[in-house]
């Protein structure tokens, strides 16, 4: 029996919808995203409705998550960054739950589609540019000149800084997409070996499948975490503009 390890990433349209040549069909990914949104909302609404001083299981889970995200925001942006907390928390919870839901056998990993991660990455980066130009005006272009650059180095430094700025959304998108896709391909290949190996040897890759699933659980969390941290770092850079060098003391 042969199984294409990329097969789980195919999108199957459940309800084909076509508006003016635009394909807005309800497919596996869309359905999974709805499930994820419902899960996150349900967790937060149910956990938040109790408001007990001594939290129950669900409430302490929600409190732990919120406190964790708050820690990231304060760490990277400082007190002023708390105005971005709703955005950052939404991003983190959505990505985390997408990654986790994708680990349930038979479900779909939305974050293994590069278009999804790219939309997130470019929106975050676009937002950071908008904040930068709104707060600092044309001075925001100074982000292309690292502090303390001698004038004769400028023709070299500006293209390098431009590339390193443009690389930000791409590295953000590619990192999440590649990690999720690679992990699921490995799981798919191992499980394919289990099926084709039969009883005699097939149990071996099956044990690895279980081990990989545990590893993927960690990766799901770390990738959501790193996406959130970098979101905060990029927003913070636009917010402060060399802030940690000039206004440090």
């Amino acid at each position, binding site marked *: 029996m042969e199984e294409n390890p990329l097969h789980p990433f195919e999108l199957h349209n459940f309800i084909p919808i076509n508006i003016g040549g635009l394909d807005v069909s309800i497919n596996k990914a869309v359905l999974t995203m709805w499930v994820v949104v419902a899960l996150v909302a349900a967790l937060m609404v149910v956990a938040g409705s109790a408001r007990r001083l001594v939290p129950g299981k669900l409430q302490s889970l929600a409190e732990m998550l919120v406190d964790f995200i708050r820690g990231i925001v*304060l760490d990277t942006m*400082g*007190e002023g960054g708390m105005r971005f907390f709703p955005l950052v928390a939404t991003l983190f919870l959505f990505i985390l739950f997408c990654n986790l839901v994708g680990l349930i056998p038979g479900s779909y990993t939305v974050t293994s589609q590069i278009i999804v991660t790219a939309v997130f990455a470019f929106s975050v980066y676009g937002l950071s540019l908008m904040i930068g130009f709104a707060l600092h005006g044309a001075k925001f272009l100074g982000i292309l000149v690292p502090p303390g650059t001698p004038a004769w180095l400028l023709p070299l430094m500006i293209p390098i800084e431009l*590339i390193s700025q443009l*690389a930000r959304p791409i590295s953000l998108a*590619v990192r999440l997409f590649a990690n999720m896709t690679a992990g699921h391909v490995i799981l798919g290949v191992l499980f394919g070996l289990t099926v084709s190996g039969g009883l005699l040897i097939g149990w071996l890759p099956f044990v690895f499948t279980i081990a990989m699933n545990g590893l993927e659980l960690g990766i799901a969390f*770390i990738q959501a975490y790193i996406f959130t941290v970098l979101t905060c770092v990029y927003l913070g850079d636009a917010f402060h503009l060399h802030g940690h060098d000039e*206004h440090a003391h």
Partner: protein
Amino acid sequence: MPPPDDPLYAGLGQAVRIGTELLAALIVGGGLGWVVDEYILGSGPWGLVIGLTLGVTAGIRNAYRAAQRWQRPPDTPGKDK
């Protein structure tokens, strides 16, 4: 799974970050150079060569920056202010 505020996560996060940081800058640099070659100047391989060189430089710079952020001791809250 360790609790989410374990400093291990910050370390792991930084570790998985650096590889893609190098790659993304290389893609952007090479891509820009290639576009200049193909569609704007028609300047043979030179745009790609210069673009890749700048891309590698930017990638190493980004990785260096990521490592610098890492250097900050984990127990000092908020570097600004």
